[in-house]
Every structure is written in structure tokens, then in C-alpha cells.
């Protein structure tokens, strides 16, 4: 019964999102990587040593599993609870059997459907503009990373949205800037707790990129093999974040006092 209710939320939310503004966002996110890749290609078309597979891999990694996945899930997953609370529609969902749980899971799946479709389409469009003969290997690597990054970031932003429903977007931006962009680059134990660090490590391991002239310095910023260990950590990370969000939304009292005047 819970699965059926989750499916109902997924379809309802996916249909409800078919608004002009959401579709424009989807199109912008989808076209942005191709636009950047196209501009880089034009800018480098006349230089003597055009970028090889490694720079193009880095560009696609930065644009798709990082930018599109992160921005897409941020916009979709962060306001999941706050939008319902601000719209005062939360109470209608909360008084249904397992209501809060199925709403959160259904919205999580809707987030994945919208953002993954955008990220995969953007990867295909951008890859089509990469001037390399064998772009398939790069696309395969980036696709695997996208399939890991979207669920992880969606779970992360969903948790932040349930923890801080009143300032969810501000908190999510601050978290992203501080932890995912700054702390993830600190060569210490703390960076291993970020999604960014795991994705970066997997990118290096799966892309067979050279570690440069100083491998030890590079290994401070990326983890060590094996790759499967990082995949397991990332999947576990996703599950834990999702379960934490479900636990919070089930146990927390979202104030209803402002909903009535009595």
C-alpha cells in the first residue's frame, strides 16, 4: 500500500510540475552544458594544441554530475517540505496513512526523474559537441557518476529541507558553498564526508586520469582505490541521508498553529 501511495505522489508531483517555469528550468539546465562545451570548442578551434580527452572529461564532469545534478536537485528537493508548509497544504498530507513518509519518498522520486532526465540529456547533447573520436568512454564514466550524484545530492538537499524548513534554500546554499565546494577540497578526514570528494575520486579512478608529477599531492584531493569502496560509501551515504530525512519528517512537529485562528 505504501508503494502505491508513493507512486501516486510521484505521478501527481511530476504532473503538477509541468508548469512553464519548471519546464524552462529543465530546458536551461539541459542546454547549459552543451552551450559551454560549444563555446569552449569555438574558442579552442584555432589553437595549435586543442584540448585532449582529459580536459574534455574534466569539463563534462564539472558540468553534468556537478553543476546540473547539484543545481537541479537543489531546486527540486530543498523546498519539498517548506513549500508545503508555506502553502499550508502539509496538513492535508500529514493526516493520511504514512502520509509524511510517502510524500517525501514520492517527491524524492519525482526529483530524480526530472533531474536525471535533464542531466542525461545534457550529457548527450554536450558529448555530441566534444571533438574527439572516442567520446564513448567519457560519456560512460560521466553517466555512471551522474547516476550516483543525483540520488546523493537529492537525499542531501531533502534532509536539509526537512531540518531547516523555514530557511531551507539559504541553508542549502550555505552548505553547498562551505562543505561541497570548500571543505571537500581540504586534504583531511573531513573532506571524505562530502559527496563531492567521492564523486571526484570515482571520476579520477574511472577516467584513468594521470595523477601528475606529484601523485602524493594529488591523492590528498582524491581518495585511493578501490573504486567500489567509494561507490558503496556514496550509496550508503544516500540511504542514510534519506532515512534521516524520513525519520525527521515523521517525528517532527511541523507547527500548525498559524494555520487557523483558533
Amino acid at each position, binding site marked *: 500500500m505504501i508503494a*502505491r*501511495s508513493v507512486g*501516486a505522489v510521484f505521478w501527481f508531483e511530476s504532473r503538477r510540475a509541468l508548469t512553464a517555469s519548471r519546464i524552462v528550468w529543465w530546458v536551461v539546465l539541459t542546454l547549459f552544458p552543451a552551450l559551454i562545451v560549444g563555446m569552449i570548442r569555438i574558442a579552442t578551434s584555432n589553437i595549435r594544441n586543442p584540448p585532449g580527452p582529459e580536459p574534455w572529461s574534466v569539463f563534462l564532469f564539472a558540468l553534468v554530475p556537478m553543476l546540473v545534478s547539484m543545481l537541479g536537485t537543489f531546486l527540486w528537493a530543498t523546498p519539498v517540505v517548506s513549500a508545503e508548509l508555506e502553502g499550508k497544504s502539509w*496538513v492535508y498530507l500529514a493526516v493520511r496513512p504514512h502520509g509524511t513518509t510517502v510524500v517525501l519518498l514520492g517527491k524524492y522520486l519525482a526529483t530524480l526523474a526530472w533531474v536525471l532526465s535533464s542531466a542525461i540529456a545534457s550529457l548527450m547533447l554536450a558529448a555530441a559537441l566534444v571533438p574527439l573520436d572516442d567520446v564513448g568512454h567519457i560519456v560512460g564514466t560521466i553517466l555512471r557518476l551522474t547516476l550516483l550524484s543525483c540520488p546523493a545530492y537529492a537525499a542531501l538537499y531533502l534532509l536539509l529541507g526537512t531540518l531547516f524548513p523555514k530557511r531551507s534554500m539559504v541553508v542549502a546554499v550555505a552548505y553547498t558553498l562551505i562543505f561541497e565546494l570548500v571543505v571537500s577540497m581540504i586534504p583531511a578526514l573531513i573532506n571524505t564526508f562530502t559527496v563531492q570528494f567521492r564523486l571526484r575520486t570515482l571520476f579520477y579512478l574511472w577516467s584513468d586520469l594521470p595523477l601528475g608529477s606529484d601523485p602524493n599531492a594529488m591523492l590528498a584531493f582524491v581518495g585511493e582505490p578501490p573504486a567500489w569502496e567509494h561507490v558503496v560509501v556514496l550509496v550508503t551515504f544516500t540511504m542514510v541521508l534519506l532515512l534521516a530525512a524520513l525519520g525527521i519528517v515523521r517525528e517532527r512537529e511541523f507547527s500548525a498553529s498559524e494555520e*487557523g485562528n*483558533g
Partner: protein
Amino acid sequence: MIQLTSVTKLYGTVIGVNDMTLDLSAGAYGLLGPNGSGKTTLLSLLTGQLVPTIGRIRVLGESPRNNAELFRRLGYCPGSEGLYANVSAIEWVQYLCQLQGLNSSDARRAAEAALATVGMTAAMHRPIATYSRGMRQRVKLAQAIAHDPELLILDEPFNGLDPIGRREMGELLKNWIANGKNLLLASHLLYEVETITDRFLLINGGRLLASGTAAEVQALLVDAPNEITLRTTELHRLASLLVEREITDSLRIADHAVVLSTRHPGQLYEQLPQWLSESQIAVTEMHSADESLQALFNSLLKIHRGEVL
């Protein structure tokens, strides 16, 4: 149907519900209280959205917090609007029925039936954003009754309805009760509730001041002073007459009217026409300030504090 045992709800240092104990058997009840009296907090506790700081709550024999079994038997229409603007009424009510556990086709049928019950069939395919406030109120009621709950809890359901809509809503709720279903109806307007049910819970400041039928509540007020205003051109003769009959506790002349306070309003209402007739005094207007709900609560509050012996 509903049991509360010493229930208190605190928001930090602010008291939402204050040491409330009650045991309601199956039936229909009006929850009456002025704005800010704690009605919505009490309903939030009964629907499991809030957890009591102290005490125990049972609704249909079950704890309401995260209770899927209870939510299948409960219909709730909150006071706030909270409807999605860009979906139609049929989509929204069907969606909420699906969350009740119905499959898509059963949910569709239940939603259509509920919207027909509240008179929204003709407009149910239009986006909710195009509805009037009264129409949105009907849609809110439809989502609460669509899954045929045992207990219907409504928070200010008459808000935004025009006189015809209020009458139709009243008829609908009376039919609901006539079909043997349970109802708890919160309102700050006495006349709205008394057309539906004669059993009341009166709360103010988060406290339950009184409960029972209108007659039982009236019995509580029998010794409470009742303020009555009489307008006449012969103010001093009327004042003199009332003092002679020893019916008033206090009396004053103000704003071209005699304002009296009495513990025996029934006796006054019964005998006043005869006294006026005998004395040839014409009274052009008579009203009791204590007919307002706030005045009723003020009287109950005085009894609650022991100010009326």
C-alpha cells in the same frame, strides 16, 4: 470517541492547551471558542500533528500520532486553505484518496462522489485557482469526506461561505450526523454550531470551560449575572419599576437606556411584559449583551475562577 487525560500543550512558555480532560462518547459536538482560544491546537493534537507536552490522547481508541490505522478512519478539514492552485478539484481530491490507500479508479470514483455531495461536480475540472472562497471551502470538505471516515473533524468550515452556502453546508453536516457518523466541528460562532448540534465544548485560553448540551451549559450560567439593556423614553420610571420589583442586582442609566444586571433573566423575561403593561411604559428596544459568545465565555471564566458563587 475522544478521550483526553490531563492534556497540556506548551509552545515554549506559551500554553496552547491547558490541562484538558474530557471523554466524549460517539456523536456530534461543537467546539466553541473565541479566536486564539486553542481550538486549532486542540484539533492538531487530535489529528496527531502535535504531541501533547503532558497527558494522553485517544481518538477512536487509538493514539493519533503517526497512526496509519486511525488516519484511515479520520477525515480532517483544517481552517487554513492550503489547496494547490494549478490542479483541479477532482485531481486533488483523487490524489488525497489515493494517499488513503485507494487505487486510482476507486479514488476517482470516491472523489467524484464527494465533490457531487458538496455541489462541485460542474466545476471540478477547473483549476482550483479559479474558484471562489466558498468553492474552495466545499472542496476542502470533499477531501475530508471522500474516504467515508468514521469521524469528521472540521475547523471553521463555514468560513467564506455565503448564506446559501452556509445553509447547504449545515444541511450536509446534519445529514452526516443523521447517518450515524461522528463529528467535531470547531467554530467561534455559536449560531453556526447550534444549527448542527446541541452538544458543545467551550474552550478559552486553552482551557475547557464547559461541556454538554445547551441546557446543561445554561444551567451552569443560572447564577451568573446577566446584563440586559432596555431602551425607553421613560428611563427613570422604568428604573424605579425594576428596583421596586427587586429583580436587579445593579442598575444604571446610560446612553438613553436602562442597563441592568440580574441573576434571574428568565424570571425577568417572563414578567416584564406584564409589568410594562400595568405601568404603561413603552420599551422600544431590549437586548442582552450576554447573548454574544464572548460574554458567555466571560461568564464561564468567572465561574471557572470561582468569582461567581
